[in-house]
């Protein structure tokens, strides 16, 4: 970095317009008309934990590349049972360092569960019935730098493992530079009579492409910056790039197949710690990872060559189709339809841990409206020409956010290009809602997590038929019923032997035969050949399974149901 730039950085104001000013003390209930930087997220978690010590546990999952702590908040009501005896709900966010509002969704979810516990019936139920595991910020280094340093809305996304992106033997040596010292990396443009852009006559901030044979006014020079390494290219080797959502174990592919994969699975140490932490909680059955942007609920699989059983698609739909209504305008689809990925988080959760995993892509820029009837679509956009839309967005900026999202083009004397202009959408724009829109976003998305939690398996067991079929031989029938939409384990887990199946176990009597009832009216039973007293099974969502046992002798028998992901049950009957 040139000394002049250091000078500018040292003496200029860093903060963007709306992060300036008093954000208020961090206290319970948390406020969501603001963003929390990395340290403030920790404080927010601490105040929640201090306010609800009986319901929460705050722990450090592991350290990041730059030695920052990755925190997890566990919400569990000890009075209703041990954490791992209940279906687990996992929520994380901000695995991409720049996608910060994902952290606020996690904080909001925690804040909502805790502050409304005992007041709202639905919330009280999920706090009592489930264990909630919340990691608001996975990429702690990314979030830290996103707030502290100058960035575009899309940078500081990577895990902080240096990579030589431009193949010159140096690592991360040519990042964009905040030349005008405003805390954002925006665009550079230069006056150029042979340029292929001209200003929009209605709004001179907008550049539109010239038509053939039309005289140009500007050339776009890309992101704000200088050629730090003097190789004739600008900003071509910024931090990373190791994409934290391509570095997980399942179906991982090397970086030459997929950029950003990292050299090997879990080469990111923070990710490795998070993975191990999840692995130690086999009760987790549903998982959410929040990202931005676009407004999407994405499910597995992440690439077309893998497929998942129809039963699991149906279970996903229970959540996904309702989520669409809670977050209007979002789409719900398998993530390969967006683009194929390998080694992503959702795949690891679903294929390795048997967890129904969703990616929530937060925020739709279309919601930044400046028009009379917000329900009507804005001006139709021609392919490749967004001028109308750009005008509206700028008017939204000017009149709804008081100019906080856009940096006006201003002259700057560039060491290589000479006089240029710097301006454009600031760091806290484009992919992030303005703070005034944040409360609705966090609430709606946290409500989807709540809906999923309310749909985790709730199994009841009954011995519904006991009769003596012969002298000294009893027929005992057991029914396991699931009142919720998610099964007690995914079909994929059953088919691929991913983890231990649910167990139905009879003790206290000699089980001569036992098996699943396939047709109760015709008394068709699929008797298990060996060890009939132990049955392996799973209970489908909104469904039931029935088992029949033939038991010799007259005694009190005990029936136990054990599940990794649903609550264990026990009952007994005297024959």
């Amino acid at each position: 970095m040139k000394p002049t730039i250091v000078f500018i950085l040292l003496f200029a104001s860093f903060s963007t317009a709306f992060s300036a000013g008093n954000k208020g003390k961090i206290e319970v209930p948390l406020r969501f008309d603001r963003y929390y930087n990395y340290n403030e997220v920790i404080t927010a978690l601490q105040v929640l934990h201090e306010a609800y010590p009986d319901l929460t546990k705050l722990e450090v999952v592991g350290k990041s590349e730059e030695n920052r702590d990755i925190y997890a908040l566990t919400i569990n009501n000890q009075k209703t049972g041990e954490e791992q005896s209940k279906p687990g709900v996992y929520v994380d966010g901000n695995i991409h360092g720049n996608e910060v509002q994902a952290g606020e969704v996690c904080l909001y979810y925690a804040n909502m569960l805790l502050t409304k516990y005992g007041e709202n019936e639905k919330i009280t139920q999920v706090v009592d019935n489930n264990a909630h595991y919340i990691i608001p910020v996975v990429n702690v280094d990314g979030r830290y730098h996103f707030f502290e340093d100058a960035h575009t809305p899309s940078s500081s996304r990577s895990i902080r493992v240096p990579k030589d992106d431009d193949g010159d033997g140096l690592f991360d040596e040519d990042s964009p530079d905040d030349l005008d010292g405003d805390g954002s990396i925006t665009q550079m443009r230069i006056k150029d009579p042979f340029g292929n852009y001209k200003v929009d006559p209605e709004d001179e901030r907008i550049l539109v492409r010239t038509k053939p044979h039309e005289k140009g006014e500007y050339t776009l020079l890309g992101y704000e910056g200088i050629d730090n390494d003097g190789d004739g290219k600008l900003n071509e080797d910024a931090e990373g790039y190791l994409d934290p959502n391509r570095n997980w174990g399942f179906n991982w592919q090397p970086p030459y197949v997929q950029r950003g994969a990292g050299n090997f699975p879990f080469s990111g140490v923070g990710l490795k710690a998070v993975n191990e932490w999840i692995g130690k909680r086999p009760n987790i059955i549903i998982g959410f990872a929040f990202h931005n942007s676009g407004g999407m609920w994405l499910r597995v699989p992440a690439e077309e060559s893998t497929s998942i059983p129809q039963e699991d698609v149906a279970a996903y739909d229970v959540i996904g189709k309702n989520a669409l209504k809670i977050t209007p305008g979002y789409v719900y689809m398998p993530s390969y339809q967006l683009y194929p990925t390998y080694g992503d988080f959702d795949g690891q959760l679903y294929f390795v841990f048997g967890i129904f995993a969703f990616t929530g892509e937060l925020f739709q820029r279309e919601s930044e409206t400046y028009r009379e009837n917000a329900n009507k679509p804005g001006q139709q956009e021609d392919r490749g020409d967004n001028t109308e839309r750009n005008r509206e967005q700028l008017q939204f900026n000017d009149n709804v956010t008081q100019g906080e999202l856009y940096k006006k083009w201003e002259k700057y004397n560039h060491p290589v290009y000479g006089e240029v202009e710097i301006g454009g959408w600031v760091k806290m724009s484009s992919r992030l809602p303005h703070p005034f829109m944040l409360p609705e976003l966090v609430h709606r998305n946290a409500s989807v997590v709540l809906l999923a939690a309310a749909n985790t398996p709730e199994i009841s067991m009954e011995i519904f038929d006991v009769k003596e079929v012969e002298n000294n031989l009893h027929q005992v029938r057991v029914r396991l019923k699931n009142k919720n939409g998610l099964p007690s384990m995914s079909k994929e887990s059953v088919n691929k032997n991913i983890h231990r199946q649910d167990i139905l176990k009879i003790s206290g009597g000699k089980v001569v035969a036992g098996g699943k009832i396939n047709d109760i009216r015709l008394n068709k039973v699929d008797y298990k050949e060996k060890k009939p007293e132990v049955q392996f099974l799973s209970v489908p969502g909104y469904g039931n399974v029935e088992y029949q046992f033939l038991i010799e002798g007259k005694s009190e028998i005990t029936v136990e149901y054990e599940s990794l992901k649903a609550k264990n049950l026990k009952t007994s009957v005297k024959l």
Partner: protein
Amino acid sequence: MIKKLYYALLTGFLCYLPVSLFAQSDISFNKYHSPPEVQQVLKQLQQGNSAQTEIHTIATSPGGAPVTVLEIGKNLQDVPAVFVGANFEGNIPISTEGALGLAKMLLDSSRYTKNLKWYIMPLPNPDAAKGYFNTLKYNRTVNNFEINNDNDEALNEDGFDDLNGDGLITQMRVKDMQGTHIVLKSEPRIMVRADATKSERGEYKIFNEGIDNDGDGKYNEDGEGGINIGISFPHLFPYNKKEAGQWSGQAPEVYGIMRFIFDHPNIAMVYTLGSSDFCLVPPQGGRKGGANLQNFKIPSRYARMMNADPNKTYPMEEVIEKVKELLPPGTEVTPSMVAGILGLGAAVNPLDEDLKFYTLFSEDYKKYLKAKNFNTERLAPAPAKDGSFELWAYYHLGVPSFSMNLFTIPKVKEEKKKEAGELTMEKAGEMSTEEFVALGETKIDSFLKTNNAPDRFSGQGVIEMMQSGKLTPKQMVEMLSKKDTDDKKDAPDEKNKALLAWSEKEWQGKGFVPWKKIDHPDFEEAEVGGYVPYLENTPKPERIDSLLNIQLPWLLKLTEKMPSVSIASEKITDLGGGVYRLELFVENSGYLPYPIAMGQRNNQPSPVIVLLEGDVKLLEGLKRTPLGNIGGNQVKKLTWLLQSNKKPVISAKIESEVFSPDVKQIKIGG
């Protein structure tokens, strides 16, 4: 100049061959070293050469054993390195000995450690490797990682059981009406699958020796451990195998190894001692599902950007042109780049360019072994497994990856006495009836006997049939050869033949446990028997030393093929006005290119940079210029346009993680 002198000295060293490769210390290779003993040997080697060596502990196995790497050449800076790993599956103890032997060779003679660093890892899978030294042996390949293989309520509850008490887990054959196997008629020790099309009906079921400990109807399905380190690296990671773990690197050994190797970008070649042998048999191709880089469709999300039709198939050259349009002018676009940008997928077959050197070296290796009177008529080494270390090294690191199998069993030589002038089947088939009959009864008798004719065929009978026109020599030969093939079908296959012969010759028959009835809780008629574990790949300890001495030096010799990049010469042209053209000739004096084709494809090997420093202005060209790919024995020219009025001395320097820095002082403007 200094460099040249250095090379001259090195060349001098090439003439020196150690008399005994194990001269200096008292470590001997007449036994197999248990995992703790291996650590002892490493320590001994390290302490005996402390200036030169260092032991790195890179992981701890779930069983609590260290995974260690012996670095030879810790005193060397800026030199290429060779990584040697052995016995990843834990069931080939001789490969661990090989790694130790190699370390000793390197420390006994300085010839291959002058400008080359070595990282030697004899025991990446210590938990499995201890299986060979246990009183109960079963060819263990997995570590102590906890895996509930049958997903029931218990862990490791149904392993093998030594029913006949011989300390070996062999096989169990059980008489069963629904059996799948029958006894091979010609060799009753061997069990073969019954072939219903030949009216064979199965009589036996085959199991591994054991009982159904957990009573679930399955035998030995959930024994101790674990993950097999030898199949859990990320290239073609076998997700469907429980013993690979659930993802690559789940086992701490694998994770630690990958971390160590990526932390050492100076590693420019990788050796694997184990079951495959890329020295002898080049890596296998022919796998489907790899990226097609010749003709392919452009994924729709890029097609629009590139003005292309997503439904059309384009040749690579055309796509390169389309990609170029999207990039700054002059950007070099290679097929590998296109594959990466468009996400065309992974390489699953060795690249043609690389197969050339693999093939050539394997031919050289065969000659080398022949010259050492080493019997190469052996059972073929196993192909590299999906998820193996050697495949990962090639496909993901992009460096030359050579594996070596130090011992396979000799084949049984076909004993067919051929006397001069003997009548062959081929010749007989071409004869006319008259000619054949004219041979006379004695000769025909002997011909029939040599060719295993059925007893009912006698010389006299054949002559009679031929004279009455019922049989021609051609028909006779056809019948005989059909009988011959049928006989062969009934004989044990080549591998069984070799194993049985080896058991007889080398182990006095103890390589095969004769089938013997045992008491089994579940079966009325069960026998235990079969090959003893480790027979196939573990020779008697007294053979180790000679096997290592013959084969390992090849791995040393192969390092002579490594690329070596330096500045060959330069040319300055004075263009006037203080403007000069500098042409720098960079040479690779090694045989192998840098990187190899796979390294060019995956872009993983670290780049070679030519760094220009001095008081000049660069009119054209960069201060740091990536050299790019350079072929073996190739010279590559780099050009700069400089401007200076001071006639300065500038320096050009090779900067690389792999190659030694080579600096050239260049006087500009005479």
